């Protein structure tokens, strides 16, 4: 590894929720902090932890102890690692290097600009072309006789945080648009984001009006009128202010506020009470504090869940999306959604609503399109919210994380409705913070173009689509969409659960030891392969003029069924990490180089043996052993269940 700047040996990694520790070497590279367990036994592969600098949210050096100098690193993907470095000087070196590395001040320093997977220029470009929002609006049935594409924002002149291409009612003339945009915070005037073709009802989004206590704007009123007129199903249009009423009223003092029903004809105004980014940030912090405490009792856990309010906020967002969905699909009314600036809560509610209304967004590709549309193109401030550059800590907020969690809650309620499993959500979350791909960099499209992200970085979507078999939900039923085109989630609070795999993704001891998801996926995958092999063999036999024998039901598929394992994932069933993927890719390539004529079946089993230290079964159980097994530990009973060793 040529980037290595420094290595420190004999570093101990303390497990977060037990008294166990492993020792190894800590390497610091230009992009990663890497911990490699010094391998004591040959049977298990050495554990490696790779932490991308961008993922590190904070580094803390605790006071010196007898065993060394503790270094606690908290990551944005909710990984918390606790190292103990023997010498204080080494600890200080790492600490200060990290501090320097994890506060990039310009975009050029971000990993995306140096990240270089084995890809040629053409593949990279194709990656960026995978998602086409113009085509997406066409899929919805726009432009049509009531909605059209407008070029007012071609040069980001009207609103620099909006995309270039915007869709507005045909009757909304340019002066109306310009007037309306002047009356809206940050110029974010009402535009179409989702079109429900069946009822020709529209979901539009904007920012709060600059109404203050009494100001009004005729163009803005005409704009809403135009939206209303574009829908013949309903005489009125809903205006959903996603803020709590109190917050909206307070904004009036600053010359902003909300729509006055008296000024706008045919609107129905509604507050839905989602709290602001600061409340959400504090709430998640509290949640993490609660679940991060080491000896947590069940009661404290439940009380903590309650008092941090996180699930209450998650439910508020889902409730708002349900309200939106009902208005559109049941009443056939158009809805205008806004909050303050229309890029946080508005993005959450619009995208979740669309997810409930349209089965397309519940597919892997569709979900990417949805994020691209409602979050990336409409200017959710990823750079600020995810703290990509050293910026204002008050701007940081887990709004997008919360959206992903809402989606997860829905996947839990409708296990058959989504093509993807939670791994897609976790992987997206990982990369929103990794700054490894260009998609989520910067705050809006205009800035992204200035940075020439399309030319200088890679697209996450291409990467995810390439390995999409890892993200499939085995319970997905494509015909579910026919019977349930619109999802109607339950709003009962008992359906909102703590998302352990997100907030404890890296806490090994917390997870089930065996994964149904992984097992079923493996079964499915190997079944397909076996079928291919059978076909292949049959055709070969036929070539030789032999009719295929009837399959022997006794022939156990056990060994063949086993696929390469993913030994380093902390949660069983986790998709391959990038590094593993690379390694596997390299192995495959090596095999290709050998170029022997082996049947597909054979090469597959061989790879199984090479790719891991044993069969899948052994691996997953050695995993059990590794955590609890008698060998790995000193013969002391003192662990999870807390007996003191008997000394006599």
């Amino acid at each position, binding site marked *: 590894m040529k980037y290595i700047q420094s290595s420190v040996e004999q570093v101990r990694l303390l497990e977060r929720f037990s008294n166990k520790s492993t020792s190894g070497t800590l390497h610091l590279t230009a992009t990663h902090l890497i911990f490699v367990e010094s391998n004591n036994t040959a049977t298990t592969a050495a554990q490696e932890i790779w932490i991308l600098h961008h993922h590190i949210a904070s580094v803390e050096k605790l006071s010196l102890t007898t065993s060394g100098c503790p270094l606690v690193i908290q990551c944005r993907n909710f990984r918390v690692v606790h190292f103990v470095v023997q010498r204080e000087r080494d600890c200080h070196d790492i600490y200060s290097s990290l501090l320097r590395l994890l506060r990039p001040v310009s975009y050029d320093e971000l990993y995306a600009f140096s990240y270089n997977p084995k890809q040629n220029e053409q593949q990279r470009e194709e990656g960026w072309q995978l998602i086409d929002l113009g085509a997406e609006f066409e899929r919805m049935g726009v432009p049509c006789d009531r909605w059209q594409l407008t070029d007012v924002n071609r040069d980001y002149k009207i609103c620099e945080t909006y995309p270039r291409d915007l869709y507005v009612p045909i009757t909304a003339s340019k002066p109306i648009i310009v007037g309306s945009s002047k009356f809206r915070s940050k110029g974010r005037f009402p535009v179409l984001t989702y079109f429900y073709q069946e009822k020709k009802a529209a979901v539009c989004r904007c920012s709060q009006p600059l109404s203050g206590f009494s100001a009004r704007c005729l163009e803005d009123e005409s704009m809403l009128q135009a939206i209303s007129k574009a829908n013949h199903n309903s005489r009125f249009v809903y205006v959903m202010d996603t803020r709590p009423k109190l917050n909206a009223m307070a904004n009036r003092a600053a010359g902003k506020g909300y729509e006055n029903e008296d000024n706008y004809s045919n609107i129905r105004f509604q507050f839905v009470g989602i709290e602001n980014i600061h409340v959400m940030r504090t709430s998640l912090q509290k949640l993490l504090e609660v*679940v991060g405490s080491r000896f*947590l*009792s*069940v*009661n*404290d*856990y*439940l*009380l903590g*869940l*309650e008092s941090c*309010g996180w*699930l*209450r906020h998650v*439910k508020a967002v889902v409730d708002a999306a349900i309200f939106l969905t009902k208005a559109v699909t049941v009443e056939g009314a158009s809805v205008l959604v806004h909050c303050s600036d229309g890029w946080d809560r508005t993005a959450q509610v619009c995208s979740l609503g669309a997810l409930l209304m349209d089965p397309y967004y519940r597919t892997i590709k569709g979900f990417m399109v949805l994020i691209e549309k409602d979050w990336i193109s409409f200017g959710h401030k990823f750079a600020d919210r995810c703290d990509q550059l050293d910026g204002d800590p008050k701007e940081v907020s887990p709004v997008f994380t919360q959206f992903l969690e809402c989606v997860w809650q829905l996947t839990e*309620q*409708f*296990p*058959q409705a989504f093509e993807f499993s939670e791994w897609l959500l976790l992987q997206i979350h990982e990369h929103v913070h990794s700054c490894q791909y260009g998609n989520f960099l910067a705050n809006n499209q205009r800035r992204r173009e200035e940075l020439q992200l399309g030319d200088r970085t890679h697209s996450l979507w291409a990467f995810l689509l390439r390995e999409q078999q890892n993200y499939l939900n*085995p*319970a997905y039923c494509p015909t579910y969409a026919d019977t349930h085109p619109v999802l109607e989630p*339950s709003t*009962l*609070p*008992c359906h*909102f*659960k*703590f998302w*352990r795999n997100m907030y*404890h993704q890296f806490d090994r*001891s*917390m*997870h*089930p030891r*065996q*994964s*149904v998801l992984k*097992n*079923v996926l493996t*079964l*499915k995958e190997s*079944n397909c392969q*076996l079928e291919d092999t059978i076909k292949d063999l049959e055709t070969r036999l036929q070539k030789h003029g032999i009719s295929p024998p009837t399959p022997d039901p006794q022939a156990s*598929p056990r060994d063949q069924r086993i696929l390469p394992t993913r030994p380093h994932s902390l949660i069983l069933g986790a998709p391959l990490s990038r590094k593993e993927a690379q390694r596997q890719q390299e192995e495959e390539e090596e095999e290709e180089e050998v170029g022997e004529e082996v049947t597909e079946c054979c090469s597959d089993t061989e790879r199984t043996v090479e790719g891991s230290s044993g069969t899948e079964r052994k691996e997953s159980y050695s995993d*059990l*052993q590794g*955590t*609890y*097994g*008698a060998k790995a*530990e000193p*013969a002391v*009973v003192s*662990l*999870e*269940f*807390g*007996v003191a*060793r*008997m000394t006599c």
Partner: protein
Amino acid sequence: MEFSEHIKTANVEDVVLRRPFHPPMQGTLCVTGHHLLFSNRDGDSSRLVLLLLRNIDAIEKRPSVSSGTITLKCKDLCVLQLDIPGMEECLNIARSIEYLSSLDIVSDMYPFFYRPLKLSLQDQWGLSSPEQNYAQMEELQDRWRLSHVNKDYSVCPSYPPAVIVPHSIDDETLVKVAKFRQGGRFPVLCYYHRKNGMVIMRSSQPLTGANRKRCREDELLLQAVIDGSGLGYIIDTRSNQQAQQARMTGGGFESKSSYSCWKRLHRQLERGKVLQESLIKLVEACGDHSHSVDRWLSKLENSKWLSHVHTALATAGLLAECVERDGHSVLVHGSEGTDATLLVSSLAQLILDPNTRTLDGFLGLLEREWLLAGHPFQHRCAHSAYSHARLRLEAPVFVLLLDCVWQLARQFPLAMGFSEPLLLRLAREVYASDYGTFLCNSDQERCAAGVKERTHCLFQFLLKPSEREHYSNPLYEPTELAIWPSIQPQSLQLWRGLFLRWTQHAVHLEKAQEELRNLVIECRGAS
């Protein structure tokens, strides 16, 4: 039938039945000695709903002038509603249900009348006997023997006729030990750990009383257990304080001075009324349709149910850890040794012993550790969470066991040979059943009532090929290793399948589970 005197109105027409997941149905309601029958003839198709009266936990009636509504809250947590035309009919039916659903004479209960065509009373009752269990474990036979001291149930009424005890302890000694243990439940072997020859024993509390009585024979017996390894643990399922207090009422614990080679560990498991109230609160919380997350979480917390799950799993983990990792034998008891004791010992066996994780093995474990070991099912499961009756001896210990097993199966989805539907089925059958398995409080009572001759055995039925398939886990891959559960609160979950079974959205989850199951079976079948 003698029940007829309690049935004033046997048939009512034009009754409307409302139940979860189904549109309201209009039809004829009929009350029999053991069932509510509801049939509706809708055109050509006729549908029949059959409800075992024993399943009804609480009945609420709202009569009005010309009709009435009866709400039936069942022990399987389902809530039904009947709209009955005619006030008198409504009251009559309600009265019949109230009486017939709370019969407490065992021989009047439905299992004695259930005669399905496919089953014969000549079939074997039960899965295995203590003799067979003993015969199967050859490794232990040089140090342990099968004692028939209790063959007429005179030494311990709640024990089976044969139990396994140390070889060196004769029956005479056992009789004396029994007098020193509450209810005569002297220490017996319940699990032998093949890997290191350590054992799990269980008993009731010693009757040391306020003046610290001792019993030589009891001390001898325990000494014989650890003979060789030299040390043992006693896991007392009460807190230290509770154990101290028990001395005032004649009970007590093994003191350090008398049992010098045994180390006591106290882990407080709730039992009895506290547990029943916990279940009642939990079910109430699950039925609360308010939309506030805070309220839900605070009610869930307030029910303490998950804390009980946590404590049970943690104590079982501790027990298993003592045996497997520390290599010591363990005696577990609380006060009576018929509730928390059995809970902990059977969970520890599931953690340690792969044989108890198969479908047959699990039912065998339940038979050994719950039915033969004398868990008083009839007392504990007389009423469930909805009942308005005054609590007497009810406690959902067995439901708690099933919940803990479910948690284990969630964490090790491949390690168990049985599936969630089995646990759900058992949770239902234990309160109201066609089968005689869970009747009575002990083996002795079961024999006296003729349960084994005159009723069918649930476990035998569940192992019939047709049922077996439904209750097996298609993902099952046996492992010889111990399955150590994570007991972090974040790793424990509310058992939706049981407690939220009847909420609107359970259907989606059930369908998806079924789908996955079919998929796995299909894949495995194909390959």
